[in-house]
């Protein structure tokens, strides 16, 4: 069964068009998420496949409304909680 990330051939999405701003990261936090994820995978806290899966099992509506690096950050925090590195309360700042 396909998940929401499996959009190949799906109809209804808008025009693509190249974006004027094509820098790798649009803001500093995106670069931090990128670097953080590489480090955590590098440390063996989770694997690249687990990371990808954590994005792909996002609730569909949430997936579609999140930007690319918002999806990444969602996956990183999901895995940190599931692996017992941080608690959900800690991530939420409670």
């Amino acid at each position: 069964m396909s998940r929401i990330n499996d959009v190949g051939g799906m109809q209804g999405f808008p025009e693509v068009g190249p974006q004027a701003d094509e820098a790798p990261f649009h803001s500093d936090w995106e670069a931090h998420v990128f670097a953080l994820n590489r480090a955590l995978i590098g440390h063996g806290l989770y694997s690249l496949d687990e990371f990808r899966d954590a994005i792909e099992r996002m609730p569909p509506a949430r997936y579609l409304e999140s930007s690319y690096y918002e999806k990444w950050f969602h996956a990183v925090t999901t895995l940190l909680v599931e692996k017992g590195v941080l608690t959900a309360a800690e991530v939420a700042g409670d």
Partner: protein
Amino acid sequence: MSGEHGGPAASIAAEVRHVETLLEQRGLVNSAELDTALQAFLARANPANGARVAARAWLDADFRARLLTDANESLADLGLSMGGGLQEQRLKVVQNTEDVHNVIVCTLCSCYPIALLGPSPTWYKSEAYRSRVVREPRAVLAEFGFALDPATAITVWDASAESRYLVLPRRPAGTENLDEHELAALVTRNGLIGVAAI
């Protein structure tokens, strides 16, 4: 966005900082090291690598033949590899001809030859590009201002976690006198993705 990670950019920036601080307190990451590692990664993974591959392939028939049959092995000629990411990925280079034009995509997520092209542009990762380029590639190319000859067929290559693609563009006419360095300067990232001509 809704939920605990939602809100404007300022909010998510604060959330990322917060999580990074927690991980630093546990000794799992170090902010200075993260920054150094990121800068080093960006310095070695960028589109100039892919441009060098294309220029060499245009000039050296033997290299081109090996590139098209065993890309990973041939990259070593240029001091490059597909190991720049987190794991070595298999690379297949697909050559544009008069009859067939190639385009790459990752319909499932964002798989991309990052070692040769650097981090992918935002549009490459968009649901719009991923969904549409496999169904109506010619229309998508037109949105990039690329009017491909209607007689030219289009092949779309869908990358996966382990397997990545790179387009070898056609060498532009009138470049017979250019050397490898000058040819490489003509090659664009979008040309290596297949959404632009060179």
